[in-house]
């Protein structure tokens, strides 16, 4: 997440108009969701990927790695959609028999799976285009333009800030546990994970107390003025 955030603030399109970037992503998302044309989906995926890699100057390997995470889930989901089970072989394009049951691919599931697969690719690439080229401060501009409630925008901004503090704090504790051989074997790892969870919980509670004091010193009146 931190690497995506870093790219969002330092890519070739960072200084481009956030409203134009938002409108571009929004339009493509609409097209990908409304039209059931796989070729169009593939063109969207390819186009946004080219923009992110060439214009956004995001390293191809980083981009590919980012795709691998949801990609593995996507392939597993598509496989479950693709494969059908039946006692009758006649509808299958390809099939195999196990204990009298036929496992295989039927024409309708093939076209449906392909459509879902390409749509997912298109929407994923749009999501990465948004995450990698529009930093959070520009997201705020877009959300304000969309007239989203200020409470929602404040919440998003605060969540973003505190997620980063949480991640930093998590890695500090995690590294401390590694250095103390906390993950040397399965039993120790189990204990360390529970310790880590307790530590994070205590830190959050302690942090809440400190933040409350600081908010008071800054004359907080319930409004974050985002």
């Amino acid at each position: 997440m931190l690497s995506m955030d870093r790219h969002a603030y330092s890519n070739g399109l960072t200084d481009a108009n956030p409203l134009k970037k938002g409108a571009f992503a929004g339009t493509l998302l609409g097209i990908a969701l409304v039209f059931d044309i796989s070729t169009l989906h593939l063109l969207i995926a390819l186009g946004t990927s080219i923009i992110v890699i060439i214009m956004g100057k995001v390293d191809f390997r980083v981009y590919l790695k980012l795709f691998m995470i949801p990609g593995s889930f996507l392939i597993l989901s598509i496989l479950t959609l693709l494969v059908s089970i039946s006692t009758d072989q006649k509808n299958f394009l390809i099939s195999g028999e196990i204990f009298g049951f036929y496992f295989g691919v039927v024409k309708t599931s093939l076209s449906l799976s392909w459509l879902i697969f390409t749509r997912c690719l298109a929407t994923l690439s749009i999501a990465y285009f948004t995450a990698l080229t529009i930093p959070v401060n520009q997201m705020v501009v877009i959300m304000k333009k969309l007239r989203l409630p200020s409470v929602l925008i404040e919440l998003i901004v605060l969540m973003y800030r505190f997620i980063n503090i949480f991640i930093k704090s998590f890695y500090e504790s995690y590294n401390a546990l590694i250095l103390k051989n906390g993950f040397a074997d399965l039993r120790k790892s189990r204990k360390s994970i529970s310790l880590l969870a307790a530590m994070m919980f205590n830190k959050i509670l302690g942090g809440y107390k400190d933040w409350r004091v600081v908010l008071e010193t800054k004359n907080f009146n319930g409004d974050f003025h985002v």
Partner: protein
Amino acid sequence: MIKVKGLSYVYKDGSVALKNMTLDFNNGNVIGIIGENGAGKSTLFLNIMGILKPGTGEILYKDSQISYDRNYLKNYRKKIGIVFQDPDKQIFFSNVYDDIAFALRNSDIPEDIVKNRVLDALEDTDLLEVQKKPVHFLSYGQKKRVSIAGAMAMDCEIILFDEPSAGLDPSMREKIINIIHNLKSEGKKVIISSHDMDFIYKVTDYIYVLKDGSNVLEGDPSEVFLNDDKLKECGLEQPWLIKIHQNMKVPAFKEEYELYKYWSEINENSNNWNGLQGSPHRD
């Protein structure tokens, strides 16, 4: 401007943090509060800020006791700001500019004044070039300066610093020293709590030494730091310039360069003397 009279504070768990403490912050422009961990420094700051309400005693601002009424505190905190030790616990925004502007906006200050004050604070803390950078990409020292800029933008009369030099590299520490010197020259009062004796000796002009919630020693830094026995009793030690002063019988300098200048003058004089007398190593 601000005084603490007979202040006592006991936490809910029964631990006594402050015992009948009396401090007059009119004694200097940059005042140091030193003491070992648990001496009561942070509790004192929270009491001064009106976050904690003392059990007994009073906090006087411009000779009147502070009130704990919401409106009073709102105005009071426009005059007195605080910079806490951990910057991550006082920066709420992911954007430097918005975080510095936060307290100003809470005080209903018009946006054009907010902008001017934030830009001035950014310039004074040498942060102009990172104003658009997300806070979590900043170094610890830069985050510390963001939190200082937040207090400076409020244009407070008094700024409290809790451990301002903790966790900083020498160059960042030097930047903080410069910021404190600038605040002093602008006529602001600065109150610093720290364990860094060299830092305190360098920037302050009056010191209070706390032990177990009481004020046990006070005065000019050069005098207070000469009392080595008392400092040791309080779990503290002398700044290195004072140690050199006591052990090598040189004057008590406040700055390192003053000592080097003194030494070079001594060496020059002794060379001149040797030149007149001839070589001291004659056969």
